[in-house]
């Protein structure tokens, strides 16, 4: 390889040095002089009227500086946390959007809803005093599950939201679907639950607010995936602080998986309180608090039907989904079960007609929003479970049934019946790579070998396609987005040839400091150690939309390319002047600016020096300096896709499911750093396997208490729960509309894995006549399923 730190090289991560030696700087690691500590008083009830708050005793406790409530925020005209996406119902009416105050005012609507905040000299003192705040709660009946919340007479989460219905939305052509079903030779049907999950980034959320009386500037340091968005939302909608007086910093962030995209009330509270008490205010969640207050993910209840002709060709898909929004609308919540879910229901298949209906429901639970994959895992799980049911019912081999219905590569670009236009993808190729990789033909022998040991064995497929790097701002705006979805970058060459790149993307595990630097190293031949990537600080970076939806490289990386294009254009002009050549004769070769056909050449370092010490510089044509900024607004979504194959072994005596093998074949377009990409896949797979086998967020259906509120009760996948993986990718289908040809890889593993695992589990249990099992396939559930289905029934 020409450049060992260029595109395609598995460059070891530059950020690792600090993380491996304990020198990372996460929000809770930061302490300020005269800092105070905030601890929240949270509702122990899922639904209660707040009749009064008596903080007198707490105020007398040692170290207490202030006890602040929703009434104090109201007096200061603090606003509601805004929602960034508006959905319209079938009838054209806008979604119901009740206020969501950082601290509840008259009613608490979920266990953990903030009711007051205690600010004290130490965290321990604040914690002690929080127990002394007397809140007079009048408990109200709670609507906990989405299904019960929709029933007539259910308790209302918000008095003015009748039936707890946030919106009743649809997509697709209902008449075409009805007509296709009328012609169908076979219809496969499935009811399924995509259970609620807790994202569980390992770093709990934290926020540190500061106020500078001299300048009037507020600073919020927070565990965020997108500090500029927090600045915009909190500044403009919640606290009324103009952008130039509000700095938001997201330093090292310990994982996000979606849960740190959103603007949370605690961020507004510490920012507001810091001015009020005149000292920095820090809050760090304890894990129990994270379980109660981080936005959760998934929580869909769906019915799906697939119409086929006699040969197994898909004719139409009909889906009805009920999505739980929780008690309030989190920042991007309404977009998840709609434009990031129903639009993906075509999957990899050329199903000509699709109709989806989605009801979004308020419940007395913590808000639900994007969690790794965000709508797309729900779509993939539904389609791929349904296809597996169809294969079992029609007797067509499950790989063959998929192949028969794939959108062929020759049909690209392909317009789906649910709004999206896929640009590239060769789904048959993914399958062709996967089948020998997992020795599909050898499955029967492996199953027989398992049987000899008294074990059941199953193999399951999932093919997925996702939409990443959310598409043109004008299209997103038409679909309800209240923000632009571009990204910004600035590429600043310094006089001696080193480079600082300012990116609006945010890295919280993705390795941008390495991958983004590779883009610069490749383009200009600069040693990677001379490239600094700066992210996560609104005072340094022009603007940013942050990191979510696997968008960083496709959108943020493309913005860097655009800025580098501008640098190169200017550098060529400077080089032409310095080399006394025509600009048109300057070529860029291996990062050097060469006069075509000669050995006259300059490095970017030579040019940068001249740009800042412009003694021999075309000052009549150009300004000095070499520092360019760009915004990139994508032309379309990107469409990563792939084929995952899982094999499980089940002990019928205990119900324990073991993932025997897992192979992922992915098309991420062009790959910049294979090592990092594979790492993203591994991590995604385990989150998907976690959903399939272990994780389940459970609220008590009557009281609304969170039952799985710690790692003692919420089963996180651990090292001994999962195998090592076989991961392959191909680069034959680069994205056609961004300059890097990249598609994104952050969520893919999670999107495909749950379906592949569950298809394998159901396949293994099929000899007992089991046709479906809801996630997670815990030993208890599997054991019960085996007991419910005797072998005699299976023979029927």
């Amino acid at each position, binding site marked *: 390889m020409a450049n*060992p*730190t260029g595109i395609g*090289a*598995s*460059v*070891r*991560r530059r*950020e*690792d*040095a*600090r*993380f*491996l*030696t*304990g*020198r*990372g*700087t*996460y929000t*809770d*690691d930061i*302490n300020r002089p005269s800092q105070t500590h905030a601890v929240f008083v949270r509702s122990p009830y899922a639904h209660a009227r707040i009749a009064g708050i008596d903080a007198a005793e707490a105020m007398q406790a040692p170290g207490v500086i202030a006890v602040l409530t929703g009434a104090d925020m109201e007096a200061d005209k603090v606003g509601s946390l805004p929602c960034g996406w508006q959905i319209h119902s079938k009838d054209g009416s806008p979604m119901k959007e009740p206020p969501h105050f950082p601290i509840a005012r008259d009613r608490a609507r979920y266990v953990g809803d903030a009711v007051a905040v205690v600010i004290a000299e130490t965290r*321990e003192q604040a914690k002690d005093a929080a127990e002394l705040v007397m809140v007079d709660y009048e408990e109200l009946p709670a609507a906990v599950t989405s299904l019960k919340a929709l029933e007539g007479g259910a308790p209302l989460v918000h008095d003015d939201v009748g039936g707890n219905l946030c919106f009743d939305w649809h997509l697709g052509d209902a008449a075409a679907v009805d007509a296709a079903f009328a012609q169908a030779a076979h219809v496969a049907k499935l009811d399924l639950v995509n259970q609620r999950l807790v994202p*569980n*980034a*390992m*770093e*709990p959320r934290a926020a540190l607010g500061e106020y500078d009386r001299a300048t009037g500037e507020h600073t919020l340091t927070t565990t965020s995936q997108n500090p500029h968005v927090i600045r915009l939302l909190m500044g403009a909608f919640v606290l009324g602080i103009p952008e130039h007086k509000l700095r938001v910093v997201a330093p*090292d*962030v*310990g*994982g996000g*998986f979606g849960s740190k995209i959103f603007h949370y009330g605690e961020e507004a509270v510490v920012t507001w309180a810091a001015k009020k008490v005149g000292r920095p205010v820090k809050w760090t969640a304890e*894990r*129990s608090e994270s379980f109660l207050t981080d936005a959760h993910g998934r929580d869909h209840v769906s019915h799906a039907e697939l119409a086929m002709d006699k040969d197994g060709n898909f004719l139409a898909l009909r889906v009805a989904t009920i999505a739980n929004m929780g008690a309030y609308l989190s920042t991007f919540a309404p977009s998840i079960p709609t434009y990031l879910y129903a639009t993906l229901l075509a999957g990899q298949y050329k199903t000509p007609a699709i109709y989806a209906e989605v009801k979004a429901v308020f419940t007395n639970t913590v808000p639900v929003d994007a969690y790794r994959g965000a709508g797309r895992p729900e779509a993939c799980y539904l389609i791929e479970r349904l296809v597996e049911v169809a294969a079992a019912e029609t007797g067509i081999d499950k790989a063959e049934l998929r192949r028969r219905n794939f959108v062929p590569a020759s049909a690209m670009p392909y317009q789906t019946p649910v709004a999206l236009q896929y640009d590239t993808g060769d789904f048959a190729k993914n399958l062709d790579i996967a089948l020998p990789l997992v020795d599909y033909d050898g499955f029967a022998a492996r199953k027989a070998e398992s049987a000899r040991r008294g074990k059941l064995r199953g193999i399951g497929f999932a093919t997925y396609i996702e939409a990443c790097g959310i598409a043109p701002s004008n299209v997103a705006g038409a679909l309800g987005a209240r923000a632009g979805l571009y990204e910004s970058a600035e590429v600043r060459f310094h006089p001696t040839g080193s480079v600082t790149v300012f990116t609006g993307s945010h890295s*919280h*595990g993705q*390795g941008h400091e390495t991958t983004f630097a590779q883009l610069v190293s490749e383009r200009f031949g600069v040693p*990677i150690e001379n490239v600094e990537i700066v992210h996560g600080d609104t005072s340094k970076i022009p603007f940013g939309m942050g990191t979510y939806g696997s968008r960083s490289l496709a959108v943020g990386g493309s913005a860097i390319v655009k800025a580098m294009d501008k640098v190169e254009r200017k550098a060529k002009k400077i080089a032409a002047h310095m080399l006394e050549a025509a600009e048109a004769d300057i070529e860029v070769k291996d990062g050097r600016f060469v006069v075509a056909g000669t050995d006259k050449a300059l490095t970017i370092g030579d040019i940068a020096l001249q740009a800042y010490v412009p003694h021999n510089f075309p000052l009549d044509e150009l300004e000095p300096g070499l520092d360019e900024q760009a915004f990139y607004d994508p032309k379309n979504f990107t469409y990563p896709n792939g084929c995952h194959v899982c094999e499980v072994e089940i002990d019928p005596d205990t119900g324990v499911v073991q993932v025997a093998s897992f192979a992922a074949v992915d098309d991420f377009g062009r790959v910049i750093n294979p090592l*990092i990409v*594979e*790492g993203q*896949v*591994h*991590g*995604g*797979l*385990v*989150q998907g396997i976690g959903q399939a086998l272990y994780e389940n967020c459970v609220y008590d259906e009557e009281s609304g208490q969170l039952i799985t509120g*710690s*790692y*003692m009760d919420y089963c*996180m996948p*651990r*090292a*001994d729960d*999962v195998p*090592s*993986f076989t991961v392959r990718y191909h680069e034959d289908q680069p994205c056609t509309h961004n300059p890097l040809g990249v598609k994104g890889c952050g969520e893919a*593993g999670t999107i495909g894995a749950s379906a592949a695992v569950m298809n394998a589990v159901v396949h293994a249990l099929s000899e007992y006549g089991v046709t479906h099992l809801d996630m997670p396939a815990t030993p208890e559930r599997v054991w019960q399923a085996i007991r419910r289905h005797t072998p005699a029934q299976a023979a029927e």
Partner: protein
Amino acid sequence: MPCTVSMTVNGKAVSREVEERTLLVTFLRDQLGLTGTHVGCDTSQCGACVVHIDGRSVKSCTMLAAQADGAAVTTIEGLAAADGTLHPMQAAFREHHGLQCGFCTPGMVMSAVDLVTANPSPSEHEVREGLEGNICRCTGYHNIVKAVMAGAEAMQGGTMKAAAE
């Protein structure tokens, strides 16, 4: 009631007055400023806070600072050589991309070092079982396991595969 605790941390003698209820992890982070040791949970499940006490791995959220009185404590900050050369386990984590967000990493590395000290040539299965007390949400464990196997070999005196960069 405050009490005085004295211990050796990363080779340096320290003595501080702390509240009796102060956890060791709080002492390390807030009193000594050693913020490399992280707090990821409140039920001693996640292992982000693992340090070595007299050479054995301990979840520092599970013991009081007072209980470490007189002990020799090593945190992630004290693992590399004085000249900055990474410990073979740290180097293996970097080489094999055994970390992403970095939050679980200090605890994971400290656990791995203890695991390999007790079992110098662990099998993959033994590594996975040995790391059961450390949760990572980013890596899917695949590369952590690879790193620990390689780190074990390097700690045995084997040679690390040269970094590819």
